[in-house]
């Protein structure tokens, strides 16, 4: 037996244990509050599959606003469909379609997008987001829970009837 205490001493060990479990308790408490503050998402509203109308309701080369789904049905010149989220990718303003200029022009910071949602004028950092489109029995259905961010326009984003 020696007089020099073992490393770590009992006192050190208890200090470390207190610090560890005390810190853990604080982290847990913070976790409880953050979890509590998570948004409650309502089912069945914006976020579900929305029927936009029949294929023939949308003439080629047209842009139609579907207000309750917060998107535009874009029918391209070749008959293809896209569902474009109406929220600007810059800072979230609702982007109106300007039929005279054939562009989406954001009123907040003047971001501009062409018919396919591609950026024509910054500050928007990426094209307008898309929702998933499916065409069943001549009906255009848009899944507003299926939000797709993209960096550029690709032909795979277009759905044909």
């Amino acid at each position, binding site marked *: 037996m020696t007089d020099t205490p073992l490393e770590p001493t009992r006192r050190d060990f208890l200090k470390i244990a207190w610090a560890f479990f005390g810190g853990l308790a604080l982290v847990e408490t913070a976790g409880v509050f953050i979890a509590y503050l998570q948004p409650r998402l309502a089912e069945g509203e914006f976020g579900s599959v929305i029927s936009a109308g029949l294929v023939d309701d949308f003439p080629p080369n047209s842009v139609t606003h579907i207000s309750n789904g917060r998107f535009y049905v874009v029918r391209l010149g070749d008959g293809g469909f896209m569902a474009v989220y109406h929220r600007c990718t810059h800072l979230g303003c609702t982007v109106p379609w300007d039929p005279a200029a054939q562009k989406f022009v954001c009123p907040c910071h003047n971001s501009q997008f062409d018919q396919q949602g591609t950026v024509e004028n*910054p500050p928007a950092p990426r094209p307008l987001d898309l929702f998933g489109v499916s065409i069943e029995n001549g009906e255009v259905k848009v899944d507003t829970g299926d939000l797709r961010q993209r960096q550029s326009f690709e032909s795979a984003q277009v759905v044909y009837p």
Partner: protein
Amino acid sequence: MTEPTSRPSLFERIRARLAPNEMPSDDRGRMRMVVDSLILHLHPTKVIVTSMNWTYSWGLGGLAAMLMAILALTGVVLQNNYTPAAPQAYLDILEINSNVWFGELIRNLHHWSANLLIVVAVLHLIRVFVTGAYRPPRELNWLIGVAMLLLTLGANFTGYLLPWDQLAFWAITVGTSILSYVPLVGGWLSQLILGGPEVGANTLLNFYAMHISLIPLAIFGLMSYHFWRVRKDGGLTLPKSVDQVEEPKPERVTTIPHLVRRELIFALGWFAVLLIFAMFVPAPLEGIANPDVSPNPAKAPWYFMGLQELLLHFHPLVGAIVLPGLAVLAIFLLPFFDINLNSVGIYFRSRRGRSMTLLAMGLALAAAPLWVVLDEFVLNWSAWLPTWDTLLSNGLIPLAVIFIPLILLDEWTVKTFHADTEERVLFIATFLFTAFVVLTIVGIFFRGPGMSLYWPWAMPAAH
């Protein structure tokens, strides 16, 4: 049987316990009264005469505290006529304006006090900065003050949504979308604060809760700490004239009546101004919030228009996160590298500091509008560098284009004026702050539909 010795009556005893018989007439009694009172003992029993100089502190800290008191009082009564739910919130504001006794006056007072508070708090910060009053041992109180300024902005911003009109809805939509650009956790953070993917009913409730409980509680705590620290650090710094070498003489007078009288006159005067203003100038209220239609132009609250102007010129990560983050960090760190105690109390540090401040203001007044106009009509980085990521072409490159001349300018002041650290800090801070004020003014008065530049007198109506 009645006692022969006359005992004071019940009422007499109650009155004597609640209020002193008469104002003390000697200094000893006056000092005693300060110590014995909960409110007055925030003050020392005696104050140094020159620290009360009107043209030194301008009473800005006291005015900020008074505005906080007005905000607390009017805020508490406004809650009695308000429901934090859409669309009831908007209807309640209409009721407050038309169908509640003095409702519009109380709302106007709350609105204008909140806006004035931002101006006053920023002026207070500037006063402390230009007199070097944050130097040791007052660094900690500077940090507390800056934290309170940020909380005040938070209180203003959360309060901005509560009327639930178009102005509120879109200013908050634009303001909170900035959060989604925070790297890694942005999307999660914005969901947490909004209570969903977009500004909606949950957002209103979240903001209301923060506006009436968390933020005021934090501000009250920090305010108490701030006042206590003022006394711990030996009161206000003392004014010095620009060529004065020796330390100012601390001649003291009793707080009652010298300081208390000034404070009462000052508070009453300002309250009268506010009250008259609130009687005649209504707080803005537009149509009810409509998520389908963004107004054109959609502007953030005026105190964030400088930030929104930055967003027009930079990638959002740079304009909304990096630049403001660096600015706040620099403000927090100021008292740790600007530490020359000899110039504490001298406005703008020295004669050289005064010239350099004017020069910095002049340069910023010329450079900032020039840059805004150039960027609007000539510079188009993302078109010139189409294959580059917009974070580079629209963010880091213009950032470098601005910061490199600023660094050269700083080196030039060292070479030409032999400027010390404290004067260089003053020069750069003046330049950046003046530029920010210019951007704010451009954003408020010169931006019209489509956020294009217009002369204020030729501004088309919003639609």
